[in-house]
C-alpha cells in the first residue's frame, strides 16, 4: 500500500495530491463542514429514500425465517435438522464459523489498520465494525440453538448455582464461550466509544427535538474538550491494541474446536493461522459486498474511493494467498504424514461422494479470485469486485462445509459411515440470518453515522497546524 510516488495511471490520477505527489484518500475539495453535512445528512434527513424502506422490508421478511425456523426447532428439537451420526455437526456450526469469520474483517479494519496507521481505513471502519457486530449476532444464534435445549444455554457460563455444577475448562467448547462473548462485548464497546464524538455532532446538527434528545443521551454530553480528546484517543488506541490479539485469538479458539478433536481432517496444527486468514478473507469480501452498493446509493464515492476498494482487494489477495497455502498444506500433509486415515480423508474429500463441494471451494476461493485480483484494472472495477465478493463469500461458506462435513461423514469405522443432507429448516434458518443481518444493517445506516466524521476530518489537509502565526494558506484552503 505505497502512498508515495507518482503512478501514471488514469484511474488514480485525480486522487494524487498535486503538491506532495501523495495519494489522497478522500477526494479533494472537502472541508470540515462539507464532510459533516454529507455524513450527518444521511442520518438527519427527513426524506428517507424509498429504497431504504424497500431494503429494510426485504431484510425483515427474510429474517422471519430465523423466527419461524427457531420456533419449530424449539418445539420439535434438533431432529428437524440434517444432523445425525456420524455427521453430528452440520449447518449450525458451518454457519457459526462463517458468520464469525465475516465479522473479523471489521475488527481488523478498526484495530489492526489503526495500529499500522493506515488512515484509509477511517472511511470504512465504522460500517465494518457494525458489520462485525451484526455478524456476531448472527453467528451467536447458531451455537445457542445448536445446544439442543437453548433455554439452558446459560449453563455454559460459570455462575454459582444450587446444582453445584460448573463448566469444564479443558474443553475447547468452554473456551469458545469465553472467546465469542469477549469478542462480542469488546466489539460493541469499541464501536460505541468510536461513535461518542459523532453522537455529539449529530446532537448539535439535529433539528428534531426527539433526535436531539436521543443523540444527546448517546453522546454522554460530549463537547469536544481537548483533555477529553486526549483520553479518548488513548482509550481508542488501547482498545485497538487489545482487539488485535483478540481477533486473532477468537478464530484460533474456534479452530481449536476442530483441531483438538482426534479426527482426520480436523486434527492439524495449521488450523489456527489458516482459520484467521480465511476469516479476514471472507470478512473483506463482505465489506466489499456492503460498501459497493452503499457508496453508490448514498453518493459516498468521495469518501469511500476507488483507493479503498483497491486496498481491500489487495488485502483479499494476500489473505487469499495464505488460505491457498493452507489448502495446499492440508493436501501435502495428508500424503507426507503417511497416515492411512489422513490420506483416505483427503482422497474422500476430493473424489468421494461430496467431492463437488471441494472443487466448488477451490474454484470460488482460489481459482477465480487469486488469478484475477492481480490486475489493477479489475481491482478498481466496481462491478467485478462486487461479483467477486459474492463469489468469495460463497467459497468461504463451502470451506467450512468441506471442513465440517467431509471430515465427519466417513470416519475411522466404515460400518458407521453415513452422509449429510441439510433439510429445509437448515436452509430456512441460514437464509434467515442473512435477512437478519441485512435488516440490522439497514437500521444502522439510517440511524447511526456510518462514517466516522471526526476521523474523516483528521484526514483533511486543513488539519495541519502551522506554527508562526501565518494562517493565510490555511484560510485559502478553508474556502476551497
Amino acid at each position, binding site marked *: 500500500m505505497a502512498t508515495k510516488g507518482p503512478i501514471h495511471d488514469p484511474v488514480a490520477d485525480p486522487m494524487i495530491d498535486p503538491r506532495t505527489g501523495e495519494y489522497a484518500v478522500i477526494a479533494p475539495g472537502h472541508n470540515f463542514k462539507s464532510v459533516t453535512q454529507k455524513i450527518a445528512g444521511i442520518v438527519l434527513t427527513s426524506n428517507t429514500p424509498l429504497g431504504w424502506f424497500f431494503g429494510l422490508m426485504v431484510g425483515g421478511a427474510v429474517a422471519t425465517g430465523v423466527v419461524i425456523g427457531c420456533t419449530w426447532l424449539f418445539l420439535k428439537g434438533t431432529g428437524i435438522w440434517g444432523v445425525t451420526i456420524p455427521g453430528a455437526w452440520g449447518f449450525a456450526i458451518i454457519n457459526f464459523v462463517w458468520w464469525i469469520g465475516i465479522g473479523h474483517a471489521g475488527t481488523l479494519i478498526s484495530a489492526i489498520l489503526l495500529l499500522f496507521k493506515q488512515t484509509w481505513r477511517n472511511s470504512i471502519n465504522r460500517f465494518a465494525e457494525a458489520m462485525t457486530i451484526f455478524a456476531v449476532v448472527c453467528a451467536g444464534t447458531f451455537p445457542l440453538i445448536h445446544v439442543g435445549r437453548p433455554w439452558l444455554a446459560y449453563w455454559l457460563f460459570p455462575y454459582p448455582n444450587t446444582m453445584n455444577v*460448573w463448566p469444564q475448562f479443558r474443553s475447547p467448547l468452554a473456551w469458545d464461550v469465553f472467546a465469542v462473548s469477549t469478542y462480542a462485548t*469488546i466489539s460493541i464497546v469499541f464501536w460505541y466509544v468510536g461513535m461518542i*464524538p459523532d453522537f455529539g455532532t449529530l446532537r*448539535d446538527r439535529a433539528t428534531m427535538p426527539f433526535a436531539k434528545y436521543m443523540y444527546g443521551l448517546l453522546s454522554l454530553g460530549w463537547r469536544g474538550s*481537548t483533555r477529553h480528546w486526549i483520553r*479518548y484517543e488513548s482509550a481508542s488506541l488501547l482498545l485497538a491494541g*487489545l482487539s488485535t490479539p483478540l481477533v486473532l485469538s477468537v478464530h484460533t479458539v474456534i479452530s481449536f474446536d476442530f483441531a483438538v478433536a482426534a479426527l482426520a481432517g480436523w486434527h492439524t496444527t495449521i488450523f489456527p493461522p489458516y482459520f484467521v486468514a480465511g476469516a479476514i478473507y471472507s470478512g473483506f469480501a463482505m465489506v466489499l459486498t456492503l460498501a459497493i452498493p452503499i457508496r453508490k446509493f448514498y453518493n459516498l464515492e468521495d469518501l469511500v474511493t476507488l483507493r479503498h476498494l483497491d486496498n481491500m482487494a489487495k488485502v483479499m489477495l494476500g489473505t487469499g494467498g495464505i488460505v491457498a497455502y493452507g489448502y495446499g498444506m492440508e493436501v501435502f500433509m495428508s500424503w507426507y504424514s503417511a497416515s492411512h486415515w489422513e490420506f483416505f480423508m483427503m482422497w474422500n474429500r476430493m473424489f468421494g461422494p461430496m467431492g463437488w463441494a471441494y472443487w466448488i471451494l477451490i474454484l470460488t476461493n482460489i481459482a477465480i479470485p487469486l488469478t484475477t485480483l492481480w490486475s489493477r484494472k479489475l481491482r478498481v472495477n466496481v462491478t467485478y469486485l462486487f461479483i467477486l465478493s459474492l463469489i468469495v463469500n460463497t467459497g468461504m461458506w463451502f470451506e467450512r462445509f468441506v471442513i465440517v462435513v467431509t471430515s465427519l461423514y466417513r470416519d475411522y469405522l466404515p460400518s458407521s459411515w453415513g452422509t449429510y443432507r441439510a433439510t429445509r429448516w437448515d436452509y430456512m434458518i441460514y437464509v434467515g440470518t442473512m435477512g437478519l443481518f441485512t435488516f440490522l444493517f439497514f437500521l444502522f445506516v439510517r440511524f447511526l453515522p456510518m462514517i466516522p466524521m471526526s476521523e474523516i476530518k483528521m484526514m483533511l489537509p*486543513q488539519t495541519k497546524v502551522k506554527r508562526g502565526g501565518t494562517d493565510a494558506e490555511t484560510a485559502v484552503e*478553508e474556502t476551497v
Partner: protein
Amino acid sequence: MPPREGIYGLIAEFNTPSELVHATEQARAAGYRRMECYTPYPVEEAAEALHFHKTRVPLVCLLGGLMGVTTAFLMETWVNVWGYPLNIAGRPLFSWPAFIIPAYEWTILFAGLSAAFGMIALNGMPQLYHPVFNAPNFRNGATTDKFFLCLEASDPKFSLSETRAFLEQFPAISVVEVDH
C-alpha cells in the same frame, strides 16, 4: 449547591486549528491556567499548548487486564480443582495450559472495558449539562468545523475586561461570555 455568581468564562471562536493553538500558547504564556480548548477532532498541538500530556487511561487499562487474568485463572483453578473436579481422560485436575485460554480472553475483556469506561469516567461523562453549551455559537461549531478556546473565570488571572481584550487581539470570529 448555592447558585453560582458571575460567569463561567470567556470563549473565543476560531476558524482554523492553527489560530486556536497560537491563541492557547499565548494565553498560557500570559499566565492563564484554567482554560480548555474545544475542537471537532483531536488536535494534539492544542493539548501540548495546554500542557496536558499524561492520561491515566493506560494505567486503568493495565489494572483491569491484571484483574481479568487473575480472576479468570483463579476461578478456573478453583472450579476444576476444588469446586467441581472431573476426571477428563486422566489429565491432571490443575491443567493450567488449558486454563490460559479463557484467562487470556478475560484479560482482554477486563482491560478493554476498563479502558473504555475508565476513559468515560476520567472525562467526567456522562455529563449532559456543561456551561460551555450556553455559549450561543458553541453547538453550531464545536462539533462541526470551529475551534474554541475558553478561559475560565475561576482562573486567578481572569478579569472580564482584560481577558476580553486579551482574546480580541487574536483573529477570533467572536469572543462571548459563557454563563453558568
